[in-house]
């Protein structure tokens, strides 16, 4: 069975450690991830702004990359969700349309894959810190990822999970929104960080580097010491600690 990594352009360019954590964690469970290099970007930035031709250009690399994969795993709920727009994007291109339907049925966000497909909730990690969790919007609302990350975190030894006030409120990233409506986005991420500070957590964990990049940026801007990690990174570090 071929399990492929859909790295996402953000993780590829800025946060390769997230991809590395996924590869190593799955390897430890006997799953060798495959990385088709043809992939570039799912096309979300252009899609959300209404530039669908440009989106198709990027999306074709994704469709081509995973043609022969049995499972596709991604460290991002929003990029995984983007695949669900592909049938509509390629409704006039029969070959790509077929690939789109196919890809939609076999792509999983990382925690979905671990918990729902592999049936793993205890990865054997220890991480004795106070942690708070931000559920990214697309993953939680549109892919329905609610229990999986909590189940994984609850099985991490020594981890104190504190609830984040207004956790379900958007962090304000929204892609180009953060640049085009910078002040509104700024107000949103400022409030998100205010709530994180309220928890007095040492670590903020999440499932989507876009959100985490946004939040981390504001934390740094305000001189806060909270560590920002993708759940894959936290689990990997937790496994190595042991």
């Amino acid at each position, binding site marked *: 069975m071929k399990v492929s990594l859909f790295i996402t352009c953000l993780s590829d360019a800025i946060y390769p450690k997230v991809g590395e954590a996924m590869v190593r964690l799955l390897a430890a469970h006997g799953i060798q991830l495959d990385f088709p290099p043809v992939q570039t970007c799912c096309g979300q930035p252009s899609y959300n702004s209404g530039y669908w031709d440009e989106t198709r250009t990027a999306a074709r690399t994704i469709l081509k990359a995973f043609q022969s994969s049995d499972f596709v795993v991604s460290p991002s709920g929003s990029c995984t969700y983007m695949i669900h727009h592909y049938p509509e994007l390629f409704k006039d291109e029969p070959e790509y349309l077929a690939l789109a339907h196919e890809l939609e049925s076999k792509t999983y966000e990382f925690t*979905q894959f671990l918990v729902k*497909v592999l049936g793993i909730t205890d990865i054997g990690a220890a991480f004795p810190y106070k942690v708070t969790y931000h559920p990214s919007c697309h993953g939680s609302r549109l892919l329905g990822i609610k229990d999986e990350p909590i189940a994984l975190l609850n099985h991490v030894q020594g981890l104190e999970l504190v609830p984040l006030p207004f956790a379900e409120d958007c962090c304000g990233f929204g892609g180009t929104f953060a640049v085009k409506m910078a002040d509104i986005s700024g107000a949103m991420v400022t409030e998100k960080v205010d709530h994180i500070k309220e928890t007095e957590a040492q670590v903020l964990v999440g499932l989507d580097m876009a959100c985490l990049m946004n939040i981390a940026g504001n934390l740094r801007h305000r001189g806060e010491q909270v560590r920002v990690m993708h759940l894959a990174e936290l689990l990997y570090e937790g496994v190595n600690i042991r």
Partner: protein
Amino acid sequence: MNPASSTHGTVKERADIALNDDFLRNAVRFTTDRLRSGKKVASTEHGNWEEWRERGRQIRLHTIAHLDYYLNLFVENARSNGVHVHFADNAVEATDIVMTIARQKEAQSVIKSKSMVSEEVHINQALELSGIEAIESDLGEYIIQLAGEGPSHIVIPAIHKNRYQIAELLSEDAGETLEPDTTILAGYVRRKLRQKFLEADIGMTGCNFAIAETGSMVLFENEGNARMVTTVPKTQITLMGMERIVPSWADLEVMATLLPRSATGQRLTMYMSGITGPKRTVDADGPEEMHIIIVDNGRSQQLGDPEFQELLNCIRCGACLNVCPVYRQIGGHSYGGTYSGPIGAVLTPALNKNVAEWDDIAGASSLCGACYEACPVKIPLHDMLVSLRRRKVERGHGDKLEALGMKGFATLMANSKRFALAMRLGKIAQKPFVHNSGIHLKLGPLKGWNTYRVAPTLASHSFRDQWKELSAETAAQPKTIDPAVRQRMEQVLADRQHSKSTSRTGGESHE
């Protein structure tokens, strides 16, 4: 006139004013938190909320898909009940009909209960211009009428005003100083409007729902002013959006369950009134003459449009406003039109033919989907916002610089080798701007970002540059997969094959 409520300028400009208004932001937060948690409690208490949402959605979809039948049925039945029914394609026609009736009645005053459609068609302006007094009787609407402003929330229109501002407005209205105490202020309005109710020539209402099978109209309210407006004046005029139909009283039960719980967290509003025609000959109260004006004003535009027809499902509960993280920061006036929040961001451009003027508000969203999740009739507002953005680009109204940027993005992402090269080059190019492992530069597109953040740097080695080494390392000491895990994976594959042969499948999606 509050500059933030003007329709001039861009949404960004209006939002900037709002973002600097601490009182407004706190008021919006307080109000939406209260309403949002009210809805959570009420919907949880009721139970099976998802099932009821789907039911509500199906009823609305069905009605809209057969609107010619049900609306026509409503009209025939309403007429048989003695109602005078009129049709208005647009705001001008609606206003003309109202003015015709008002002139015939030699009306000097019109007292109104809450009607978003009446604000949409700017009926108050038309009445005032003709020397007819137009009085809002809903407490919040009365307050903003005195202030000369539009509503900043669909359900609670005056949340942007504090008690001192309200006391000032009402004191001026009263000609005496009133204490900034809620009971005193509300008591004044009650006394003042009592007189107005009894003297008014015409009562004007909106319409929450219109029941096709009996020609009845239904009003939901808490204050009692809509009941007053439909009981006391001799002539009643109701403005009704053409999509406000439900087939039967049985269907009304579903709406009556979804609407109050979603809007304010109530089991039911204090008053729900079903009005079937004017007063009977033997009745001693109720209007002698009743008019219903059915308003299109851009609604029929949405019919037959697969991306926007569902917009007509809306039951105007305001739940989307209460969960929207953008509305939370900028309040209702930033949206510029009659309707605000997520529903406003779609409705205003959709109803207006002059798309270019209005479609910048579709940009005031991070597409988080909270509105869709909260909507009791499951309108995919987050998808509609993207559709609006796409149409703007297709019509050639997109930002030129952004279009250029997107072309660049596409060129880059068309080819993985190009992308890999760009990452390597970017890593070098960023060096002068990196400080303390972050980029603080506030230039060009980074200005907006770095006003509130420190931007990250490109990694010293991209993932794909590390892949060869990483995969070799992990492949060198392979672990065996747990048989149970392997079996699960094989089962998933088998299930997938099976459903492929039976029907189209999707991964976990929001449907």
